[in-house]
């Protein structure tokens, strides 16, 4: 059992599931209330496990294991610090998604709420699973509710987008299943912690790595398999976009850190430049594409691809700064992109268009909105003091140690990011308020403020005191680094302080720090 004395992880999985089932049998208003209550209960439990988690304690905590599906796999749950932070992110975003859909979703509310609650169970299940096939089932099962969310409650081209989302991600994952079968067969176990310690033959590692890469690269998404994301984002309802950007994309990064790196260190080193090359293209190319978008959601979707490229660069630097930075970018992007989609949703609910040119001068009639929107814009740009700065800075520092060229190209992404986000903000919030329907838009309601303000505060918290978030993950990053140390490629910018440097003046010492 665990430090709390009851199986809290199963409870976190079960509550949204049961609530979702219940939603199907009640009317719209009741379904909204049930969904909000269930997600809030999960949020409370998420805070409880965060509080009860012992940083520096055993690597895997709150473990549960029942051989429910013997002899094939077992119902094994457990979390480390990385999973913990991602679970907290998920349960934090979920009540906001429900609240954001409170009035904007009018048709088939019970089914909508049920889909979201099912989605929550499956997403946190992915981060909790300690069994290879349990992970796969949670990972794949998320396709069904998301397909329905995009397809039923989406925009104009929802059907195209839902197909594209489903088939793209499915094609990526099926090859991963074969790799998992091979691994389970070779290692004789499906237990993820054991597999993380298993050394697979180097020749097989490359194939296995590629199979996992096929799945995670699509999920992440990495250039050039990112094209499903703008479509899915644009067509999904606001809350669907928040979940997609906030949590679903993190599954790719989580997969790299849970499977690709610790299980196939040699292959990860071997393919490091593949990742770097794709990420560098993504950073520059998708930032440029974002610059010319006329659709707000599409712009933010492309910016997501660019930000996720920082994650992949950071993960494959093989050093602490890079990996810490990647994890921070994942968390920060989860909050900030979710918040940006909510910002888009707020004005979309009022004017029912996502076209940037239809807005303008919102800072005059919606000052609260403009303020919060600016906060999230600045966070997305990576302004110091906000969440993204910490992650992007660390990732770039890590990248510099691995390869100064990668750091150079990736840094242009920060500049381009500032360009497209500030350009977006200028066109929406500043300028002349000359459109009568725009001028008639009311400022944020109490409900919308209740959604946005906590997000804004956490973005600042993460930017000002990132230690709260880095602390639980530190031990896991250390064990990951110990695991991949043997395969670490030599960087081109490892600063070696020569022996005689001890003699040089004190000021130079400080520079070396």
């Amino acid at each position, binding site marked *: 059992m665990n430090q709390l004395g009851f199986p809290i992880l199963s409870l976190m999985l079960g509550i949204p599931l049961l609530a979702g089932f219940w939603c199907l049998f009640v009317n719209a208003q009741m379904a909204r209330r049930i969904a909000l209550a269930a997600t809030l209960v999960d949020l409370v439990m998420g805070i409880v496990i965060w509080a009860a988690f012992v940083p520096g304690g055993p690597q895997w905590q709150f473990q549960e294991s029942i051989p429910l599906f013997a*002899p094939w796999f077992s119902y094994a749950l457990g979390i480390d610090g990385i999973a913990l932070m991602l679970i907290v992110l998920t349960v934090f975003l979920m009540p906001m998604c429900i609240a954001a859909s409170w009035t904007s979703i009018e048709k088939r509310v019970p089914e909508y709420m049920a889909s979201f609650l099912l989605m929550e169970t499956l997403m946190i299940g992915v981060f909790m699973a300690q069994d290879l096939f349990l992970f*796969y089932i949670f990972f794949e099962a998320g396709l069904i509710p998301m397909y329905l969310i995009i397809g039923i409650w989406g925009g104009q081209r929802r059907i195209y987008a*839902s197909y594209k989302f489903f088939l793209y991600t499915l094609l990526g994952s099926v090859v991963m299943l074969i790799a998992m079968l091979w691994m389970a067969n070779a290692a004789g176990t499906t237990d993820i912690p054991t597999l993380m310690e298993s050394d697979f033959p180097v020749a097989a590692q490359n194939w296995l790595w590629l199979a996992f890469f096929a799945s995670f690269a699509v999920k992440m998404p990495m250039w050039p398999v990112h094209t499903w994301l703008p479509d899915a984002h644009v067509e999904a309802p606001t809350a669907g976009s928040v979940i997609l950007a906030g949590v679903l994309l993190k599954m790719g990064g989580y997969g790299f850190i849970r499977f690709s790196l610790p299980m196939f260190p040699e292959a990860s080193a071997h393919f490091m430049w593949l990742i770097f090359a794709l990420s560098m293209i993504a950073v520059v190319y998708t930032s440029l594409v974002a610059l010319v978008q006329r659709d707000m959601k599409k712009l933010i979707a492309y910016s997501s691809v660019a930000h996720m490229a920082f994650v992949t660069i950071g993960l494959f630097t093989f050093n602490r700064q890079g990996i810490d930075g990647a994890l921070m970018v994942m968390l920060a992007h989860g909050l900030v992109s979710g918040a940006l989609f909510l910002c888009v949703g707020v004005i979309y609910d009022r004017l029912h268009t996502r076209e940037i040119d239809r807005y303008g001068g919102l800072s005059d009639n919606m000052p609260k909105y403009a303020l919060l929107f600016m906060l999230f814009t600045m966070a997305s740009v990576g302004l110091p003091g906000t969440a993204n700065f910490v992650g992007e800075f660390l990732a770039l520092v890590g990248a510099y140690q691995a390869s100064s060229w990668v750091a150079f190209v990736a840094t242009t992404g920060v500049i381009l990011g500032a360009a497209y986000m500030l350009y977006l903000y200028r066109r929406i919030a500043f300028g002349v308020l000359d459109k009568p329907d725009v001028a008639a838009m009311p400022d944020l309601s109490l409900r919308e403020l209740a959604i946005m303000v906590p997000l804004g505060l956490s973005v600042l918290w993460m930017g000002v005191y990132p230690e709260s978030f880095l602390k639980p993950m530190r031990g896991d990053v250390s064990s990951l680094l110990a695991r991949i140390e043997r395969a670490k490629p030599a960087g081109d910018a490892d600063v070696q302080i020569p022996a005689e440097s001890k003699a040089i003046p004190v000021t130079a010492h400080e520079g070396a720090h």
Partner: protein
Amino acid sequence: MLATLPELILGAGALVLLMVAAWAGDRHTKLISWLSVLLVAAAGLSLFAPSSHVGVAFGGLYIADGYAAFAKALIYIAGAIAIIIAPDHFSRESIRAFDLRAEYPVLILLSLVGMGMMVSAIDLLTLYVGLELQSLASYVLAAFHRRDSRSTEAGLKYFVLGALASGILLYGISLLYGFTGTTSFTGIETSIAANGLGLGALFGLVFVLSGLAFKAAAVPFHMWTPDVYEGAPTPVTAFFASAPKVAAIALLVRVSIGALGPAEDAWRQIVIFSALASIVLGAVAAIGQTSIKRLLAYSSINNIGFVLIGLAAGGADGVASVLFYMTVYVAMTLGAFLCVLQMRDRDGHYVETIASLSGLSSTRPGLAAAFAIFMFSLAGIPPLFGFWPKFLVFSAAVKAGLVPLAVIGMASSVIGAFYYLKIVKTMYFDEPAPGFAPSESRLESGLIAAAAVFVSPLGYLAIPALTATTMAAARALF
């Protein structure tokens, strides 16, 4: 003779019921139907008797083992459901003068006897006799709407092509007999093991496998399937898609592993080709279909492809995965056809177009949800139970070292996912079409619900029990 108890019950019962039907007439069809269900249940119970798990009958032509008992259990369940759903269907169609005749349950019973012989065959002669008994009953069943030209066309097409397949099979049998000198499975196995597989016996092997592939509707012997499935009355189609497939696959496995075991390298490549061709063709050809019954026909071809991957893997693991697959397949496919039976417009006429499913989720949410579960499950998307048998066959293939086969098969399953998604899209995303008539039969709704629960994630709880049963059944072959 106790080993043949299930066949005795069904065979004698069918003949008695035929007499009853002759004297009592079609007015008592419902009674005869229920009596037949009782007979099937009795035969099913007799499978639990110890004599059904060990014993050879007819001087070494027939074996009762765990493997046969497992396959028969599946076949009987499918057969019983095909009988149960028929009376309502035919009485509804009576406006078009298709009365249910008392022969229907009797023909199903006879077909079940034939299938029982097929899965218990350990001799080429029992194999052939069982197969013919099953087929002849099926030809009549396909044409049961005898005044409907589509149904008679289906019956005729099935008969002509089936006769051709029987001929091919018989030719293969004669070659195998000629070159090994025996018709007994063990005899053939010993002979091939001792003398190797000569050219003549190889020809025999190819012909036998072709004949069986026809019965299982595996590519390239699948052409009859869409037409027959579309034309035959829906309860009969449900029957065709489930029970005879189980029998044909079980027979194919026993012939391949048992009789032709030493010639594994020879048949494995045939099976692999057929598996991949079935998966791809079943997926691609289904995309353009507008009739739900034709679509499900291609879906069954697609699924048989996955089953054959389990056979290609061979070994106890592979055979167990085949049996597991067939178990879940029967539930999914019967469930889907039961949903098709619910597709009636307000006047009670049956509709079969996919377009008529538009917006079903608003008019009949329960039915739409069940249908969606079957579709996602047939597509093999976790957490639905249809994922698990696919997992098992691929697991067996990877264990047997057939990784490229597993990768290609798995990747092609994505093509198949497309058309299953299309059904879900039609039901959930499209604007509502005129709604269907409400369900009249609690029994049918109950059966749909039971099948849906089995293929829902709750089915995973059955994994330990089903794994143990299928493994035990599979070991009977080795």
